[in-house]
């Protein structure tokens, strides 16, 4: 067994790195290395955050963004995973959609913003749509690749023991065997979706992104940073929660 030292060392090093970052940041402003107005001092972030919380804007922005995030993530992940699994498992569908995928795949979620506004408007549905598209492709390819890399002998094993039909194969082999790949895709999507949240909201749909836009137009850089850190925190939270679920589902991987 490895000694527990490196296990403990990593989070300590990580925290130390953060302290150094904030220290250098604060010092560079106090010592005048950075012209004032370009970057808020870390010590000014606390008061700015408190004020934002007191006004209710902070919790409201989080609530709005979380709504976009969760619905977009859910829709994109479910649809992307389902279609990816099916394309991986059904060669006919895979062939039929290969051209469509080639055309649509390179178009980033952000490029759909004009249509999001046109079809849904500057509202929750529009933001959800943009987020869902960017998450869709990540999950599509993760699920597709996971199915493609399944050991074909396992289909033979399943068929030998009475699980030869399409649905039986899906249940006994495809879904459990592709779970690690699918979950890896979900996790990537979890991060990607936060990026898309900001992008989708920059156009005026209320939420963290819109609030950042307002703050920057008022040159309230401290508020921009407050929301940056808010997003980092929300991402860390969702990622940690996800990893807990993942550990339960993939216990067999050890």
């Amino acid at each position: 067994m490895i000694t527990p030292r490196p296990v403990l060392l990593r989070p300590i090093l990580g925290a130390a790195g953060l302290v150094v970052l904030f220290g250098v940041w604060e010092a560079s402003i106090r010592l005048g290395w950075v012209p004032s107005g370009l970057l808020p001092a870390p010590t000014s972030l606390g008061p700015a955050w408190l004020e934002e919380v007191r006004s209710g804007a902070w919790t409201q922005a989080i609530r709005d963004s979380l709504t976009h995030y969760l619905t977009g993530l859910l829709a994109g992940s479910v649809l992307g995973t389902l279609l990816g699994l099916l394309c991986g498992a059904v060669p006919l569908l895979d062939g039929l959609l290969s051209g469509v995928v080639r055309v649509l795949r390179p178009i980033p979620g952000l490029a759909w913003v004009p249509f999001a506004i046109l079809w849904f408007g500057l509202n929750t549905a529009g933001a959800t749509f943009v987020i869902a598209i960017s998450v869709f492709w990540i999950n599509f390819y993760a699920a597709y690749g996971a199915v493609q890399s399944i050991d074909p002998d396992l289909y033979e094993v399943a068929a030998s023991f009475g699980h030869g039909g399409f649905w039986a194969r899906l249940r006994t082999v495809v879904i459990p065997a592709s779970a690690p790949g699918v979950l890896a895709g979900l996790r990537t999507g979890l991060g990607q979706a936060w990026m898309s949240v900001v992008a989708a909201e920059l156009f005026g749909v209320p939420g963290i992104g819109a609030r950042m836009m307002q703050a920057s137009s008022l040159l309230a850089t401290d508020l921009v940073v407050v929301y940056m850190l808010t997003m980092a925190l929300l991402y860390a939270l969702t990622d940690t929660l996800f990893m807990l679920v993942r550990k339960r589902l993939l216990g067999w991987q050890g």
Partner: protein
Amino acid sequence: MNSVVTPASTADVVVRLEDIGLSHDHGRSFILRHVDLEIRRGEFVALLGPSGVGKSTLLRVIMGLMPPGEGRVELKSTPASVHRPAAMVFQDAKLMPWRSVLRNVELGLEGLGLDRNRRRERAMAALELVGLADKADRWPRQLSGGQRQRVGVARALTVEPDLLLMDEPFGALDAITRTALQEELLRIHARTHGTVLFVTHDLDEALVLADRIIILAGHPAGLRGDFTVGPRPRDRTAPGLRAMAERMKRLIAGEEDPGADAAYWQASEI
């Protein structure tokens, strides 16, 4: 040991192959052709031949995993108990890594109309038979190669097949583990009296395990010999057995069998 071949006249046939031909290019060329074979209940048959001759493919045809290009396979199933007509032990165990050992063994019992408890009972009984009852809750990755293959055997045995197909099941194991598993397989066979078709390219393995050894060789491959081996324990230094082994070696190499009367194949006994 109680694994003696019952006379063909009285014993019932579990599987019958009639003029089987296998082709990878829809009949333009054959990897295997004109194979006729009958295996009787309780027989332990080794299918012996060089690598790539089509032994595993033939096994898959019998299992029903692929259709024969020519001929037909007749698998007789006892109507009595809840079971499957055939079950297979694969080369590298091929356990499903996301299922616990117990759930792996239960795989073939799902869909047979057994309730959860009954499934569990039967799977546990099979695990007990291979000596791994205490590993029921483990994941496959926590087992050694030999243990994984034991689970593979339990998974096949638990469906109580009329015919147990084994595709070089011990080929990837180290020599010590292989010998241990061979002994265990003989012990299980002596207890269950199952019918076994065991594919191997290892002459010694065939001589240790089988009551009957069938040679598959040539291009296209066909049955080149059908030997009945005497009762166990066997003295492999005995002149009769050594002479038989020499004949098998020549047949596998594709030479004519000097001891055979017919050019095609002949049953011989010592």
